[in-house]
């Protein structure tokens, strides 16, 4: 089964093509402001690299975020419309899971971290490897690095882009006996495709209903919710 995977959550167009377990093409294009402009051209380029045409693809995998809200909207929209217009299945994968799946080390706890745009807010989650697959063992985390650190009770591998920036805040909060390891990594298209592969064989997601994983409300909605709560308490 040939799968095209893409993730655009982090100011980059990560695109990969796999055939079963075999990676045919995988590349991450820098795309700070031109995610939308280049996404389809990049996909076409990667398909050509894999000597394939869009018609040859049996299914799609797409990173749902969290990450840049604008970025994930581009990826999710492109993914769902490609699936819809080719009539092939699609599967959404949390970008945190993509990062966790890329850690090749055995056992241990993996904690992928993604910046939430502001300096002191991050998205994170804990994953453990079980039978070749990574499984999330806790709820998604949105908050400051110190708050995340308070959840770390055992040796953990932190994985993500620019995570060195959070290390000081994290170290301050946790027991110095606990071993923390950093792996600098960004989500790869081939990883999305590999994660999607198995789920696609079981049918995948409803393409039209596919929605990004924002993990945060828009500021306006958050404001209105607070306002409504305050009024009810009145």
């Amino acid at each position, binding site marked *: 089964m040939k799968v095209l995977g893409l993730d655009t959550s982090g100011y980059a167009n990560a695109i990969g093509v796999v055939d079963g377990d075999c990676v045919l093409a995988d590349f991450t294009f820098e795309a700070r402001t031109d995610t939308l402009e280049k996404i389809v051209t990049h996909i076409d380029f990667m398909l050509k690299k894999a000597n394939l045409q869009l018609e040859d693809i049996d299914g799609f995998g797409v990173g749902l975020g969290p990450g840049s809200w604008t970025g994930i909207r581009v990826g999710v929209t492109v993914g769902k419309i490609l699936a819809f*217009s080719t009539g092939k299945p699609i599967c959404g994968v949390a970008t945190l899971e993509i990062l966790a799946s890329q850690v090749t080390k055995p056992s241990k706890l993996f904690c992928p971290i993604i910046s939430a745009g502001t300096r002191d807010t991050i998205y994170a989650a804990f994953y453990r490897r079980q039978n070749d697959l990574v499984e999330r063992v806790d709820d998604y985390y949105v908050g400051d690095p110190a708050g995340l650190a308070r959840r770390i009770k055992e040796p953990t591998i932190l994985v993500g882009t620019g995570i060195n920036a959070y290390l000081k805040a994290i170290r301050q909060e946790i027991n110095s006996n606990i071993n923390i390891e950093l792996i600098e990594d960004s989500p790869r298209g081939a990883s999305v495709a590999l994660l999607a592969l198995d789920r696609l064989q079981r049918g995948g997601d409803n393409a039209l209903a596919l929605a990004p994983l924002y993990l945060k409300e828009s500021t306006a909605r958050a404001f209105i919710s607070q306002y409504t709560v305050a009024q009810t308490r009145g």
Partner: protein
Amino acid sequence: MLVLGIETSCDESAAALVIDGRTILSNIIATQLDILQKYGGVVPEIAARRHTELIGYIIKEAMDFAHKTLKDIEAIAVTARQGLIGCLLVGVAAAKSLSYALKVPLVGVHHIEGHIFASLLSNPDLPIPHVCLTVSGGHTMLVFVRDYCQYELLGSTLDDAAGEAFDKIAKFFNLGFPGGPVIDGLASKGNRKAFNFPRPLLRAGTYDFSFSGLKTAIINTFKEKVAQNEPLPIEDIAASFQEAVVDILVAKTLRAASESNVSAISVTGGVSANRRLREVFNEKCQKAKIDVFFPELRLCTDNAAMVAAAGYHRLRLGLADNLNLNVLPNAPLEVQCAR
């Protein structure tokens, strides 16, 4: 040529199938009215999220309604210029994916260009050249339509759009959102001459508009009435306010028509649904021996049929885009000119 149009520049997610820029097979519009009413206006991030959820469904609905399949589509047209960046981007991402997968041409359209074509869709006998007043909650523009896809911007608003003034006044008086239909309804029961509100820039040599001062004058009138404990004749205020806006819009458009030597005027956009605006335009144009055209009501507000029509004509003129089409939230209309 069967063109699929996609429009997501503001709060409406829309898709439509149109043949040869003339025959509408489907015209699907998903409004976000529930959200608008809750927040009193468009919240860009919320609108963009809603577009992402709806985009696939509205495209499918447009095809199902027309009993067409993806194979029948011969080109994709999408609003790529002018609007909220996060919203435009969803439509363009969908459009370029469709164009790539179906191997059909892609064409980006300016939102205002779409509104110009809304009138041409409804009125096959609308001559070109003509002067087009396009007026909504997001824009107020006076455009000289020289030829298909050749435009000259004569003037636009310096502050609020006309529809925005309606919305803000309605919001100030707690009348709900959108303000246009509410004020239109109230005004029909009020006295248009009860208050003599200012008509900014009415006699200035420019074709530009300004509605912010008018809005302030109304709020001040309200405050005076409240301070003096006088009853608040809301119908009269609505009627007088609407009359001031209509006067400005009609006067400038008629002058533009006469100075551009055209015999036809087209009025489009959400505010062109206003009954008093249509009435005064019809009255004044008849006197001036100028033909005036309005889109049918379903094409006044944002829709994708107008985008498909504009796209068809751009393609006809060889103005197709490639897969690197990007969004330009503040693109001027003139850039749209045919080469």
